Each structure stands twice: as structure tokens, then as C-alpha cells.
């Protein structure tokens, strides 16, 4: 498993417009939809700049560097911040007019610490269940269930102040889950966790999205980890949309062919370049972007013409994060 690489802001491929702007065949109601959403903070900082995006049900990753506008977007979606201009809707409800109804159907896990140290997780999540509108008994039951779902059992009777960071993150997730939301907005759920903690948190998010049938918008500045669990990806930078698409199309466009020869790698590299394939080095192998079926033929012919001992020829997917650092020399051999 690759270590998550911080997303680098930079000249990135602006992809096609977000997956469809209107109902078409196979239309699925968007859980989140924004059009030309702009948020300008006093002082002239544009946190969001003409952001138009549509998020389908499922698990959607919201990636961007720190300060890209992820938290601002989430707060606007919850109706906690008013946009400067533009329009946003969540679950078909307008974020400016129907904020309360949106908040009744959404669970929110903030990025920062938000837990009082001197109450037990059970008390805390029960209280927040009440604040989500659950009657007393239901709040108690659902608090116990939510804590169980996030993996807190006997510990839940202990004061939160005694918890590890990972356990605190789980309590934050449990309080978002307690009101049985249709949509979860998770702001950097893995922040501050060690690799094992990150993996189990991602597992949990993935479970909630797939088994519990709750749509999730999860933000992260670590593309590498978020791509493991998402159905869709929305990448923003400087408040602008870089790209929004399904995970599969993100990776499909990035099909590469790995060619490894026992010797003469440099020769092959030159030959492939001469055939217009722009090979790149990856340790002892070469990576070639697959354009069409002819790419395979060209590689085969190049190897045959040079008479090189072919060791390996395999089709590979590039990880999404590589799409965001095309200008950086490839390093994925470490995988």
C-alpha cells in the first residue's frame, strides 16, 4: 500500500465538465449539486471560485490541498456559511433556504477536535442524538449502536478525555451517524491518525458507504488514501474544480503498459520514442500510455525489431494521484 502523497497544487489537467449537467438517460438524483458557487472571504480571499459540481450517491472523495476550499464547501452545503454567489443544493434542497432540513438529513464530522474531555462517549453521542431530533429512548439506542458500528464497545463508558486520537475520531464519526443521516459529510476523517488508524478509519467509511447505504462526501488532502474507498472523485484547487468523475474513469484514462526487457532498456526507450509513444522510465521498466490497440502492436514490434529479451509486458492502472502530478517524474515503482 502506498504512503499517501499530499496533493500538489499545480498545473493539472482540467478534465471534462462535471459528470453531466442535467437529467439524462440513467439519471440519478445528485446528493450534492453546486453551480458557479463562489465564496469570497473578507480580505478578498476566494475560498471557492465558480465551482460547479454534481455528486452522485455513493462515496465521493473531495480532494484538494490544504486551503483548496474543501471545508468551505462543506460548510456552505450545511448552510453554516452563506455563499457570496452561486447556488448549492444538497439532497435536492437549497442550501440557503432549506438549511435546517438539510442538516436534519446530514451528518457532519468536522476536521478539528470537537469533543468535551469530561463526559463519556455514550453520554455525548446520546446528547447529540437528541440534538438531531431523536426522542430520548431512540437517542440512547442509536448512540449505543453508532458507537458499536464505529468499533467502540466497553470504552464507550469511559470519559472521552482518556481516548486515543483514533478513538476520538471514531466518536466524531459516531455522532455524525447517530441521527441516521442520508448523507455524511466527513471533513478529513483520517487527520492525525497513524497508518493503521487511517486504514481502519477508511475501512469504516467504506463500510458505511457500501453496507449502510449512506452517501458520503469525504474530504482529504491525501489523494492516495481516499482513492481506495471512493466511487467518485472531485478534485478542487484554489476553490476551482479540477475534475469530477467516477473513480473508474479516473483510472481508465490512465491505463499504461509496462514493458520490461532484460537489457537494452535505453535502446527500447529511444525506439519507442521514435514511434511516438513517449515512454517513461520506471526503475528497470518502461511505462507507455495506452492510446489505442495499436500501442500494443507498436511495443511488440519495437521489441521484436531490436531483438531484445522481453521479460515482462503488463497492463497497469496508474493511481489517481499520478494524474495530479504529471509534471513530476514518475516514482510509482515504489508501489
Amino acid at each position, binding site marked *: 500500500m502506498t504512503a499517501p502523497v499530499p496533493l500538489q497544487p499545480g498545473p493539472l489537467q482540467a478534465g471534462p465538465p462535471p459528470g453531466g449537467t442535467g437529467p439524462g438517460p440513467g439519471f440519478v438524483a445528485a446528493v450534492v449539486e453546486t453551480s458557479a458557487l463562489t465564496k469570497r472571504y473578507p480580505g478578498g480571499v476566494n475560498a471557492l471560485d465558480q465551482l460547479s459540481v454534481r455528486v452522485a450517491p455513493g462515496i465521493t472523495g473531495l480532494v484538494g490541498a490544504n486551503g483548496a476550499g474543501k471545508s468551505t464547501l462543506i460548510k456552505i452545503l*450545511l448552510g453554516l456559511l452563506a455563499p457570496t454567489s452561486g447556488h448549492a443544493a444538497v439532497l435536492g434542497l437549497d442550501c440557503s433556504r432549506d438549511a435546517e432540513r438539510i442538516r436534519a438529513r446530514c451528518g457532519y464530522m468536522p476536521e*478539528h477536535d470537537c469533543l468535551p474531555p469530561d463526559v463519556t462517549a455514550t453520554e455525548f453521542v446520546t446528547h447529540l442524538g437528541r440534538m438531531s*431530533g431523536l426522542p430520548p429512548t431512540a437517542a440512547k439506542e442509536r448512540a449505543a449502536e453508532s458507537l458499536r458500528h464505529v468499533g467502540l464497545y466497553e470504552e464507550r463508558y469511559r470519559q472521552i478525555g482518556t481516548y486515543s486520537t483514533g478513538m476520538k475520531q471514531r466518536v466524531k464519526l459516531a455522532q455524525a451517524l447517530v441521527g441516521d443521516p442520508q448523507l455524511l459529510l466527513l471533513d478529513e476523517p483520517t487527520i492525525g491518525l497513524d497508518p493503521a488508524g487511517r486504514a481502519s478509519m477508511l475501512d469504516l467509511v467504506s463500510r458505511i458507504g457500501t453496507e449502510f447505504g449512506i452517501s458520503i462526501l469525504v474530504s482529504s488532502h491525501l489523494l492516495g488514501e481516499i482513492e481506495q474507498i471512493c466511487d467518485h472523485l472531485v478534485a478542487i484547487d484554489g476553490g476551482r474544480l479540477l475534475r469530477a468523475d467516477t473513480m473508474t474513469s479516473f483510472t481508465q484514462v490512465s491505463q499504461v503498459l509496462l514493458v520490461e526487457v532484460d537489457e537494452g532498456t535505453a535502446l527500447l526507450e529511444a525506439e519507442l520514442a521514435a514511434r511516438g509513444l513517449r515512454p517513461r522510465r520506471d526503475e528497470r521498466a518502461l511505462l507507455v500510455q495506452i492510446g489505442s490497440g495499436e500501442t500494443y502492436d507498436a511495443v511488440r514490434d519495437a521489441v521484436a525489431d531490436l531483438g531484445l529479451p522481453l521479460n515482462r509486458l503488463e497492463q497497469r492502472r496508474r493511481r489517481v494521484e499520478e494524474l495530479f502530478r504529471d509534471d513530476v517524474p514518475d516514482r510509482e515503482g515504489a508501489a
Partner: protein
Amino acid sequence: MTTQSGPQAARAGVIHDIGYRHYEGPRLGRAGIIRALGWHSLRSAFGIGRGAKAKIIPVIAFVLICLPAVVNAISLATHGGQVVYYDTYVFQLRVLIMIIFIAAQAPELVSRDLRSHVLPLYFSRPLRRLDYPAAKLGAFILACLALLEIPLLLLYLGSISQAHGGAAIWAQTRALIPGLLVGLAWAVLLASIGLALASLSGRRAYATGSIAICFFLSWALAGLLRGVTSENGMGAGAGARLSGLVSPFTVLDGLRQWLGGTSPGPLPRPGDLGVLYGVMFLLMLAAAVGGLAARYRKAGIS
């Protein structure tokens, strides 16, 4: 794209348990949530639902403030004299107890949430921004009201138990009602000021300190001003009659006297200047409630 798809389904079979159940039951609306928050806050004002330590000050305050009612009952039983009046109760004791109670418990309601940054979790629920301070204020007014009115009711019970005949009971009842109204004015003003001050700091010690200092200093200042302005022997010049405007406690007493309270208080009778106490009461209340609202309109949501 459906919610059930994705390659993750397989990998997730690691842990936890049986499936997830959706909630199909009834949900409270905004008003119900505000009530729940108010009830929760009222309990925490008396340390209920917290550890034993949290109950110490509320319990001591409650016991102390009830003592005069007991003393009065004993006095009535032994030689028949009413020693405590409904509209002033025991003024100095009441001031002292209210300062201690508010300084200790107002931070319990608001500073803790500020300190641990819980507010985003409230604001991301189906509440409006000002619902939170409104629920807290309502709860704290009720808490202060309990501390101010329960002793009056005890006083009343003690008195009517010694009263002979319907007329005497009726007289007690008629005296009780203005006392309850005075208590209400105290609760509303002091709870508002206390919460507004507490909401300025997430640090409990600072919040408690600022409340205690504001209340004590203004109270001492009012006494000082009265002393200075009364020195010319007249005792009830305009200066002395206005000296109470600097402290919420003396403002409350000025208001009481202006509205017809007859028992002697800490202030000289304000007379025709009494209306100023009424105005000051409203100004202080507006400043406190406005300050509290402004605090939460601006409060960070991150």
C-alpha cells in the same frame, strides 16, 4: 452508480458486527430540539448528570439561600415575628449566593462547549444559530429562578402554617406575589449578564473570574458611592438615590422600590428618580442579551 457498488464490499468484512439499521421512528422538530437542549442545560446548571463534584456549589448555594426561610418559620413559631420579607428576602445573602452560583454555573453551561469546540456539532444540526444561546439562557433563567423562588415558597409555607384564618393567609399570599415577581426580575437580569460574560471565554476560570469580579466590584462600587454621597448627612440626596445605578443588584432593588416595594432595601428610596432604575434594568438586560446573541452569531463554526 448505486450506493451498493464498489470493490470495497469485499474488503470490509473485517470487524465490527451485524448490520446497520435505519431509524424509522419519529423525529422532533426544531422546537423539540431546543427544549431538549434547554432541559439538558438546566440539569447541568445543578450538576445533574455530572460527577459529585459538580453538585457541590449548587447544593451549598441552595441550602444557604433556604436558611432564612427556615429561620423565619422558627421565629414565627417561637415569638411570632416575621423577620424575612418576600420582596427583599435577605438582600445581602441573596446577592452573595447569586454571585457564587452564577459565577460557578454559568461557565458550566456555555464555556465548556466553547472550550472543547463542540459548537460546530450543534450548528450542523437542525437548529438555527441563535437557538443555542436561547436554550441556554432559558435554562439558566429557570435555574436562577429555582434558587430565588423556592426559598420564597418555603417562606410562604412556613408563614401560612403559622397563620390563623383566611385573612392572614390571604395577606401572606398578597405579599408573596410581588416577591415572586422581584425574583423573576432578578433571575432574568442576572442570568443574562452571567451567561453573556461566561460566553466570552472558553476557559472556565476566566469566565468564573470575570463574572465574580463584575458582580462584586459593581456591588462594592454602589455601596461606596452611596457612602460618599450620603456623607453630608442628608442620606437621600439625588446622588445617593442614583448611586445604585452602577450595579445590577442595586438596579434590581431600585426597580423593586420604584414599582412599589415597601420593605427597606440597600438603597435610599429612589423616589421620582425610580424610573431611571427601570430604564437601567432594561438597558442592562438588552446589553446582556444582545451581547450573548452577538457572541453566537459570530461564533466560530470550524
